[in-house]
């Protein structure tokens, strides 16, 4: 609140001015229906996100038959939980084991399995991650806090065509008594990208 009693919003940055310019022109041409922006924002902020992938992982941990289907036919098994859609039409799930660690990247842009993980975090889309995860994954994983024994095999998956990947992390020890919902609460976004182990 300023001395004249009126609220003065912060001046728009150049990029905000450009967004506002394109938005106004498209609205004038009838290309942005009322409520369209709010609907899209709501979908990506609230309806999709890593909580969906966590349910898939927890189900696979408690149900060996489901896990088998998930690794064999990812898209169909994920659809069993009511999940699917854009950027999830061709899902491949890769399993971490004590000997093998999987990690996902998109070197060319930002491909990511939206129905199970939501929109990708900024670091996933920025040049350092995209360049370095294929060049020196062991070093980069360690830098990001994922220290692997030297003899762990690392498999990097570059989402360069239509398949989108999900990492199935190992079930942590000491979780035998937990319910499926409790297990889902342990599963992080980073563990399903493969930049962390649980």
């Amino acid at each position, binding site marked *: 609140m300023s001395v004249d009693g009126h609220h003065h919003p912060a001046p728009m940055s150049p990029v905000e001015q450009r967004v506002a310019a394109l938005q106004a022109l498209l609205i004038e041409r009838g290309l942005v229906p009322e409520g369209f922006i709010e609907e899209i924002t709501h979908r990506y902020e609230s309806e999709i996100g890593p909580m969906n992938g966590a349910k898939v992982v927890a189900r696979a941990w408690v149900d060996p038959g489901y896990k088998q289907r998930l690794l064999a036919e990812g898209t169909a098994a994920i659809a069993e939980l009511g999940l699917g859609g854009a950027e999830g039409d*061709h899902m491949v799930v890769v399993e971490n084991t004590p000997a093998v660690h999987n990690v996902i990247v998109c070197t060319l842009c930002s491909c990511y399995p939206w129905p199970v993980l939501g929109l990708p975090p900024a*670091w996933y889309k920025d040049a350092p991650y995209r360049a*370095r995860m294929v060049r020196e994954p062991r070093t980069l994983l360690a830098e990001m806090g994922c220290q692997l024994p030297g003899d762990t095999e690392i498999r990097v998956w*570059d989402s*360069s065509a239509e398949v989108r990947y999900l990492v199935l992390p190992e079930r942590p020890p000491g979780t035998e008594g937990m319910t499926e919902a409790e297990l889902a609460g342990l599963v992080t976004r980073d563990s399903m990208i493969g930049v962390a182990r649980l």
Partner: protein
Amino acid sequence: MQGFGAVGHSPAEPAFHDRWEAVARALVVAVSSAVEASGGEFRHSIERMEPGHYLTSSYYEHWLTAAATLAVEHGLVTRSELEVRAGGRFPLSGPVLAPPVADAGPDIDEPRFGPGDRVRVRDWHPPGHTRCPRYVRGKTGVVVRVDGVHSVPDVEAHGAARRREPTYSVKFDAADLWGDGQRGVSVHADLWDSYLERP
């Protein structure tokens, strides 16, 4: 491209950091649907950004630039309208350098390769859009999966023509890619049939 520093990683990140990012994202959907842009055409409109602008701007600024570029190229708005409304310069992506694809050639329905086959990635440098990452070109790997038949982005980015081909997941030994002796690391790229040849 290499030589980047640390990844600015944080475990919990919102879908959008600012309101304008969500608006930019929605505007991409509005423009893409109005001009019926293929995935290839949309991605290429980002790749055509001036390299300095691309590397120094955020992800959603890329999307904004792509949406505005496609809107201008397809006649929805003009650049001068955008600059008048924005009250300043409105950088757009550069022109398409590759000629339009008139004849896409026949679809390929049957995979040429199967799991276990050794393949080499063609070493070529197309002037337009491609989904063949540079770091695997000329390299030899092994097919680990065949993923069905999909529209070739190199074609769909450059006109109304379409060609469909099988894609494969191809496994490369990281030491072969980078020549640095790193051990126990494989990198898999997903590649269209026409990117590959028999070694």
